[in-house]
């Protein structure tokens, strides 16, 4: 209920601002909705949305699985941490644009180059979060598992993973927003479809309604993913915690 109210407030502010500055700079909500409907009925909206979503899914999965594995390793093994740390700092501070441009130069304007570049941008933050999570693991529970001779996999699944779950959720949430921001840059620079490409076109034509139509649709999709996937996962992972009043 509160969320709905907050959303209505957002629409109201937008509408008032649109009336104040004029439709050329900021089109009103109905104008944007009209473009959305037109793009949807021609099928273009779904084509571009689908292309972008596929890239987000691929790059996100790649970065999360690789980053979690490396982060866990660096949290557990001191040598890996020492060796990996300088690389991590380099990756963390490398601007997304540099990675994308270099990927396109080295691998051509290909799908693989785009996805790899997006994944590389997300990778270091996933590593850092999971490394922190691994460092915070409760040693006394490890000892318990070892004394009771729990097989490695069972100990990982029931002792280690539940402790990492909040970190994985945090990493997924921040990662999703990061990937979604970067994927558009990659599309703008070197892909013939996707929301980023459409926004590039809209920019060249100074077509604000179109720009807003595409970006808001995608924001809505991200919101749905967050509510339907990330939050239920978090709720499940935290179900054992006594609920705060």
């Amino acid at each position, binding site marked *: 209920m509160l969320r709905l109210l907050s959303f209505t407030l957002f629409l109201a502010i937008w509408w008032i601002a649109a009336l104040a500055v004029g439709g050329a700079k900021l089109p009103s909500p109905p104008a944007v909705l009209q473009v959305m409907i037109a793009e949807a009925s021609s099928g273009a909206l779904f084509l571009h949305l689908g292309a972008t979503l596929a890239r987000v899914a691929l790059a996100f999965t790649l970065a999360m699985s690789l980053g979690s594995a490396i982060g866990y390793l660096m949290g557990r093994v001191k040598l890996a941490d020492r060796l990996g740390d300088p690389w991590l700092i380099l990756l963390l501070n490398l601007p997304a644009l540099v990675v994308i441009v270099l990927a396109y130069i080295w691998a051509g304007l290909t799908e693989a180059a785009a996805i790899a570049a997006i994944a590389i941008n997300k990778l270091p933050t996933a590593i850092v979060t999971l490394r922190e999570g691994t460092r915070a693991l409760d040693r006394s529970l490890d000892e318990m598992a070892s004394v*009771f001779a729990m097989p490695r996999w*069972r100990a990982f699944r*029931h002792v280690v993973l539940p402790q990492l779950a909040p970190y994985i959720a945090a990493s997924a949430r921040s990662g999703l927003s990061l990937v979604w921001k970067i994927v558009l840059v990659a599309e703008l620079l070197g892909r013939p479809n996707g929301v980023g490409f459409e926004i590039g076109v809209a920019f060249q034509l100074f077509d604000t309604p179109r720009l807003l139509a595409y970006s808001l649709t995608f924001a809505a999709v991200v919101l749905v993913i967050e509510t339907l996937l990330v939050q239920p996962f978090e709720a499940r992972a935290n179900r*054992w915690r006594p609920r705060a009043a």
Partner: protein
Amino acid sequence: MRLEVDITGKTFRSAAVGTHEVLAPVKFALQSGEVGVLIGPSGCGKSTMLRIILGLDHDFAGRIARPPEARIGMVFQEPRLLPWRSVEQNVRLAAPDVTDGKLSELFRILELEAHRSHFPGELSLGLARRVALARAFAVEPDLLVLDEPLASLDDALAGRLRDEIATLVASRPVMTLLVTHSLDDAVRLGDRLFFLSPRPARIVAEVPIGIPRDTRGEAEIAAIKAGLAQRIQGDRTERDVS
């Protein structure tokens, strides 16, 4: 089965004081069906000794011989349950082979039936300790290590649990190592008592109790305790004089 402990020394390195000795040479052995009790002042190195015996700490001088196939049941000082798994899951994860009947029986004895599906965060410390006991018993251990398992339980329950430990020890050939502060628990449960010195710990006295556990009546227990008290008193005055 036999547990042989022969620790020749254990030192800790810390930034503040450099190296310091935690354990002096300690040597003892335990047979199947025997209950050894370690009694010593707080901080004397009992927990360090347990960690070495359990194979959690390999950085020591000496030798621990325990059959590699020996199943270990451990009750830590704090319950060490998985907060994200229910009481029943906690026990089953440590003891996957436990039968439903055996589990129900354990829960009945430890009065945990009502708490099977609770998470450890919803339990009092006393209840959590009982779950830890259930977990250690459920694995049907060959080596049972109890690190002050009855602390913070009320007398009636502590007494019942002590009887349950005695029953379990009698029902299977299990080597039991009990760490306690309570002379009463030691005398009621132990076959051999090892009195430890302050840090660095060494065994100052090894006292076997000749009377079998199930024939120890209140009179015998009182007599053993009185004897031990006299002996401890004697040691103290001797030390004070010298």
